[in-house]
């Protein structure tokens, strides 16, 4: 009972901390007090450097979608519907979800480690001593870069996953890419499906950025503390992603 209460209080404290951080970031962004150079540096480090992982994940995910749909397709002989099935699953759920999970591991964890190291080595305090606002110099650029990274990565992943799916369908089931493309564009899928995935990507980006910054700034206790914080942040972000995924899908329909 005591343990449950303590866990609950801890979760409430983390969520509250994230909300306060979000407020601070929002005021910095609204008054345009965001460090541009740091933003570009983070965009390169988070976005461009994650491209290989996003690409590999997306190609394999598209392939898996088709392999999983294959028995159903063969059972009903519905080769024309393969494009629709793979497309709707990929665009609405799988591409945003898996991209967010990979970015969580690569960028979110990394960001926590970096901020945590800065906290442990007292670099954040040094910034404050120099009258530089750590939120507008460090946190807000990272937040914006992470949201933008996830948004762009999901667009990229959508395209690559469909490419992987079309290729696997051709190889495994003998569905020609043209048939796949027709299934994709036959009217069962609309721009709404793509938008739903993109809205999700922005929501996931906000969760990832807030939780990784929050945990990174809250590091205590040297090198093991950084490890613990990274562990906590990936777990919290993953849970947050799935929980919000449900609510976003639910409100969009």
């Amino acid at each position: 009972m005591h343990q449950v209460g303590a866990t609950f209080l801890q979760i409430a404290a983390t969520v509250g901390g994230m909300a306060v951080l979000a407020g601070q970031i929002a005021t910095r962004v609204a008054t345009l007090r965001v460090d541009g150079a740091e933003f570009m540096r983070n965009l390169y480090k988070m976005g461009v450097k994650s491209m290989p992982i996003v690409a590999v994940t997306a190609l394999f995910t598209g392939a898996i979608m088709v392999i999983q749909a294959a028995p159903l397709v063969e059972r009903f002989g519905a080769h024309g519907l393969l494009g629709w099935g793979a497309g709707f699953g990929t665009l609405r759920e799988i591409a945003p979800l898996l991209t967010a999970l990979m970015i969580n591991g690569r960028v979110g964890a990394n960001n926590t480690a970096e901020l945590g190291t800065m906290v442990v080595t007292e670099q954040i305090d040094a910034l404050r001593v120099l009258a530089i606002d750590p939120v507008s110099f460090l946190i807000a650029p990272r937040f914006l870069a992470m949201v933008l990274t996830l948004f762009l990565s999901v667009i990229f992943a959508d395209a690559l996953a469909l490419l992987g799916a079309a290729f696997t369908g051709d190889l495994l089931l003998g569905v020609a890419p043209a048939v796949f493309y027709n299934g994709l564009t036959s009217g069962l899928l609309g721009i709404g499906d793509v938008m739903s995935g993109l809205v999700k990507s922005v929501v996931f980006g906000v969760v990832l950025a807030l939780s990784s910054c929050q945990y990174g700034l809250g590091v205590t206790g040297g090198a093991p503390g950084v490890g613990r914080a990274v562990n906590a942040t990936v777990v919290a972000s993953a849970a947050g992603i799935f929980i919000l995924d449900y609510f976003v899908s639910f409100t969009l329909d």
Partner: protein
Amino acid sequence: MPPSHPSIPDRASAGPPSSELRDLAPEQSGVAAVGSAALSLFASARELYSLFVRTLYYCAKGRREPGAVLVQMYEIGNKSLFFLTVVMGFIGMIMVFQAGQQAKRVIPDLTMLGATYLELLIRDLAASIGALMLATRVGAGIAAEIGSMVVTEQVDALRMCAADPIDYLIKPRFIASLLMTTCLIVWSAAVAFTTGMVTAYSMFDVSPETFMNVSLVDAGDLATGLAKCLAYGAAIPIVSGHSGLSTFGGSEGVGWATTRAVVNSSLAVIVLNMLISAAAFLIFR
């Protein structure tokens, strides 16, 4: 920069080093970049293979230490239970909701929703989504723990005592993960199916009796699911133990190791998923 930094291939396979090193290192271009990426990939694959073989050797020939395995089973299994239950519960709701929503556009009849969902859950979803979550939770935990030990020179102390860190650190985690991943995935399949059943009942008026339909599940599906459990359970501790053991460079290094463990074990899960799914499709079709 530490005076005795690792060799170039080690550093390349160990992910991005601290930023000063990157600025000092000459920028490679074109063929050289592709070649060094391929070489480092090959080196990592060989290291992982050797770690895997040595772990298997110690499982057969090493010291018997049920206590350490039990501690790790608690660490990997019981501590992930709450996290996995929450995530799989939401996944069950999302999947059934989306599938029902889409199926209504094509076929108005939703009686086969439960049967198809259960088949997909057993064959793929429970194992793969559960393992991705475990890769995040367990992989990060293993890498952070072993990485801290490496940075504080506890692993070197083990080697000084003529104890192989693989025998003491990796083997218990490997056995524990192999057992607990299977248990956790069976549990997560049950959770996801239950929440899916509730969603189908409340959203699409599919009664639980209709939803709980095992007619599409055959031996091939069960075998595929089980093979995935075992493969993921073996891959996660090996991959993240490897990145933990190759940690260098203080608290920042522990952060890098953890990141690498999460990314690499997630990638391992996705790649294994594709290989096993394709093999199963070709065998059991």
